[in-house]
């Protein structure tokens, strides 16, 4: 069969036409490339007029294939596929050549640009003729959504979805929801207290009929695909009968075992062995920490059980496994704080009065270990001077190259709190002040007026080695004041390190479990950095909040809402189309060697014992083609990227090559690859 190909070369204004002889190339294609019956150039192919041009030719000229030589397929492939579809041509019979990104914008020499443009077009023409009609498969979307992580971002999207009348399963690792925000005291730039704005939302979550809250639980396993995920959740044993517990808290009161709270109080406060991270915790049920519980250590005590009025204590309780099915998953797993001991010159963990930002938040928090009073490590002395160190682990190639986005504002907030609570002098050591969002710059201005000192210079070291008068018994913060160009030593009583926000320690593991990708640092990767910030490359999986990158509360909330909106869209549509660009096994050719089985990271390939062949689950297959390349029997076809299509494209790209190599090389190719049938 001979195909009738139409080639359309776009000027893109002067973006392409300025460098490439568009009309020349179009005519060249029509005259020289076999199968091409139409060769046109047009100012803007993506305009409705441009699209109509194609559609008209499909109808009038009976085109069976279309090549659009314009911009990157990532921009307009969908546009032209739709155009073709509307004219009755299967969208997968249209192919694009990227003349703008790959030729006109990157090539100086016009003659060379023409040669390359022709190559790309001839490649596309050769390829498109071998492309096949494909039909996406349609699958239903389960209307229940799982949200993983119940910090402010997770809480926000859960509430948005629940309010819209959809079922939500909210999974939280810790005994209570709330995340980092629950640890904070005030929030910048408005200084309203974190608890006051967060706890109402938390109880909404706890009470909402559409939200099933699984706290103290972790996702163990995820399988399935967009619209139909199967998730196994492990509900860790709380040792509390939730149906019996009233949350009266008498057990906590009576528990004789006090331990340092490394999680919620970040090591500067205490909790009991049976505990609730904080008074307004949701759910209200406490949890027994079996590592430190005396009963689990020695087999005696049971004080909690004795005093519990409703017999809610259950020492024998075991982990519970829940198998759930959901249509979409939103990851809002948050961040970890940088380990400040990694910068020894700042003395954290060596010099008592060096604190991390989270320790300081807890100290400022009225419900925290010091009931909101700012003390030195001794727990009694009020500091007279405090230094705030920015960029600890951020903007540093040795740790995290990125800016953590929130530290400047936290520093301003801390400065205000210190001055308000203690009247101490406050010095902020910054590299660049970055108050980016609404009312942030104004907050900076306010702190300047409140008398906070700002020194532009990254702190070189914090030491207790006194050298100059007035330094004895102090911590000396040494830095270059870069605006003066001189070294300065500021003696202070307390140093607060604004540590970087970094990905959760297990971020990469989690990403793998859910089948999404991460950046080198470990932040979850969004589908598009600008235009698709909450979707991931994996359909049905969305991300919100700081698991995607450093963010402050307003941004996390917006992302939570955005992710919810995206999911609602899927739910209302009710069904989802699955890309037909997948791999397919020809049972007749499959030798059952199972090489492909362990090459697939998505477990899309099953081995059918009875037939002794492998089979691909189209819904799970993401179409990477690795198995296709690996199959020694060439039994696997990679739809839309078949062996024949790609080799044809190669041949086209090299239209102007001396065939010299060709005379011998086909032999080679056959040696390595008996050019396999359907591939």
């Amino acid at each position, binding site marked *: 069969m001979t195909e009738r190909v139409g080639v359309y070369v776009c000027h893109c204004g002067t973006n392409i036409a300025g460098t490439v002889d568009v009309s020349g190339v179009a005519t060249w294609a029509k005259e020289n490339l076999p199968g091409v019956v139409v060769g046109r150039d047009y100012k803007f192919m993506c305009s409705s007029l441009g699209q109509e041009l194609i559609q008209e030719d499909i109808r009038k000229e009976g085109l069976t294939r279309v090549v659009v030589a314009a911009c990157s397929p990532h921009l307009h492939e969908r546009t032209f596929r739709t155009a073709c579809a509307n004219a009755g041509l299967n969208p997968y019979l249209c192919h694009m050549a990227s003349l703008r990104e790959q030729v006109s914008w990157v090539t100086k020499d016009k003659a060379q640009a023409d040669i390359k443009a022709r190559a790309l077009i001839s490649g596309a023409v050769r390829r498109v003729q071998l492309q096949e009609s494909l039909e996406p498969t349609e699958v239903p979307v389960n209307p229940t959504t799982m949200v993983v992580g119940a910090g402010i971002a997770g809480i926000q999207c859960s509430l948005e979805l629940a309010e819209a009348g959809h079922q939500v399963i909210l999974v939280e690792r810790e005994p209570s929801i709330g995340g980092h925000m629950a640890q904070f005291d005030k929030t910048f730039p408005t200084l309203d207290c974190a608890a006051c704005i967060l706890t109402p939302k938390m109880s909404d979550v706890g009470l909402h009929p559409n939200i099933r809250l699984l706290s103290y639980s972790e996702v163990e396993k995820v399988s399935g695909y967009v619209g139909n995920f199967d998730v196994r959740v492990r509900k860790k044993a709380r040792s509390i009968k939730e149906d019996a517990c009233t949350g009266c808290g008498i057990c906590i009161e009576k528990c004789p075992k006090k331990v340092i709270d490394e999680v919620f109080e970040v090591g500067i406060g205490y909790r009991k062995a049976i505990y609730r991270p904080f008074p307004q915790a949701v759910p209200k049920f406490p949890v027994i920490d079996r590592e430190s519980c005396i009963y689990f250590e020695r087999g005696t005590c049971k004080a909690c059980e004795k005093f519990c009025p409703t017999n809610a204590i259950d020492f024998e309780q075991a982990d519970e496994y829940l198998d759930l099915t959901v249509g979409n998953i939103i990851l809002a797993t948050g961040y970890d704080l940088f380990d400040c001991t990694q910068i*020894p010159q700042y003395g954290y963990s*060596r010099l008592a009065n060096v604190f991390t930002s989270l320790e300081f938040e807890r100290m400022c928090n009225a419900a925290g270990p010091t009931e909101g009073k700012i003390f030195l490590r001794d727990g009694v002395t009020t500091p007279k001077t405090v230094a705030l160190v920015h960029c600890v682990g951020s903007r540093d190639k040795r740790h995290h190259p990125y800016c953590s986005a929130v530290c400047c504002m936290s520093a301003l907030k801390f400065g205000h709190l210190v001055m308000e609570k203690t009247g101490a002098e406050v010095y902020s050591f910054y590299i660049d002040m970055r108050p980016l969002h609404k009312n942030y710059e104004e907050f900076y201005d306010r702190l300047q007026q409140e008398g906070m000192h700002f020194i532009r210079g990254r702190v070189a070291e914090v030491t*207790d*080695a006194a*050298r100059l008068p007035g330094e004895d018994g102090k911590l000396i913060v040494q830095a270059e004041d870069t605006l003066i160009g001189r070294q300065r030593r500021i003696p202070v009583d307390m140093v607060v390190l604004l540590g970087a926000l970094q990905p959760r320690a297990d971020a990469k593991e989690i990403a793998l479990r859910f089948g999404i990708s991460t950046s080198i640092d470990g932040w979850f990767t969004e589908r598009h950095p600008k235009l698709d910030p909450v979707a991931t490359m994996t359909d049905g999986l969305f991300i919100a909040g700081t698991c995607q990158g450093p963010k402050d509360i307003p941004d996390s909330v917006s992302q939570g809402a955005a992710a919810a909106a995206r999911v609602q869209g899927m739910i209302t549509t009710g069904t989802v189309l699955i890309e037909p660009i997948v791999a397919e096994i020809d049972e007749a050719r499959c030798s059952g060697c199972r090489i492909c089985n362990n090459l697939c990271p998505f477990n899309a390939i099953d081995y059918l014992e009875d037939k002794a062949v492998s089979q691909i689950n189209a819904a799970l297959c993401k179409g990477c083609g690795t198995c296709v390349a690996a199959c020694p029997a060439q039994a696997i076809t990679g739809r839309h990227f078949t062996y024949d299509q790609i080799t044809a494209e190669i041949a086209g790209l090299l239209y102007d090559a001396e065939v010299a190599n060709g005379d011998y090389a086909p032999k080679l190719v056959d040696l390595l690859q008996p050019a396999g049938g359907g591939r």
Partner: protein
Amino acid sequence: MRYGYYPGCSLTHSAAPYDLSARAVSNAFGLQLDEVNDWNCCGATEYITINKAAAYALVGRNLALAASQDGQTDLVAPCSACYLNLRKVDHNMTAYPKLAERTNEALAAGGLHYDPGSLRIRHLLDVIVDDVGNQAVAAKVTRPLRGLRVAPYYGCLLVRPQLNGDGRNPEYPTHMDDLLSALGAEVIDYPLKTHCCGGHMTQISADTAYELIRRLLKSAQDYEADVIVTACPMCQLNLDAYQSQVNRHFSTDFHLPVLYFTQMIGLALGMTPASLGLGREIVSAAAALAKIGAAVPEPEAAAPRRKRAETGLPMPRRRGEG
């Protein structure tokens, strides 16, 4: 274990006690040190100041000679400055092929060649801590340094710079601390243990150097150290020989002996002070060593050269004195 040994100029004279004790201690642990044949100066911090190509060639000769000694894979330097120069040249020749090419071009003029990366440049302290191990060291201790408060002084070039992130913690190392505690000493944790001794500033801008030395001595004294322990001849020289200058300059009265970690090991292993070159420090260590029942020998040992010394060139008179 066999190692190439690059003593460096200081150890031939100003730090002779370091060389003496280094060899004695290595012997005790069965480390065979093969001195690099006809080695030359590493250029200290000076050559690179005047001429980069020559500075690299100068060190290159030592590397080439060391590598040519058969079966030699590890080159040990007891002097931190030599240690850095050797490893830096090796590292940069590896990282920058052009640099290696030019350096070898120069070496060729002397019939030599060095393949970057063919030697592992080590500091003697690292060899003892990593290859011998503190446990093995402790096992050999016969005269624990009990009751002796020692201030481990690392200085700069032992831990900095980190070339491609290698080496110890550049700000807060603890390997010498651990070694000295293994010897039974009371190790003090003072904040300036990796700060600078002034390097060659004692020669060209004394006031700058004296201030740096003062800071170190003060910090060690504040923590009531009996003795400062170093792994670098330059550090030892500045803290020991210039201590009186510093005292005069700031009218302080520091009296802190400065010894080498190898001397401390030797003492703990029960070797005689003389065999470790003790008694040749300018600030007497007698009081400190008395604490562990070791007597400092009279410096008369050094008689022969002394004669010549008195007939030597006239020394400048002390200004503002007498």
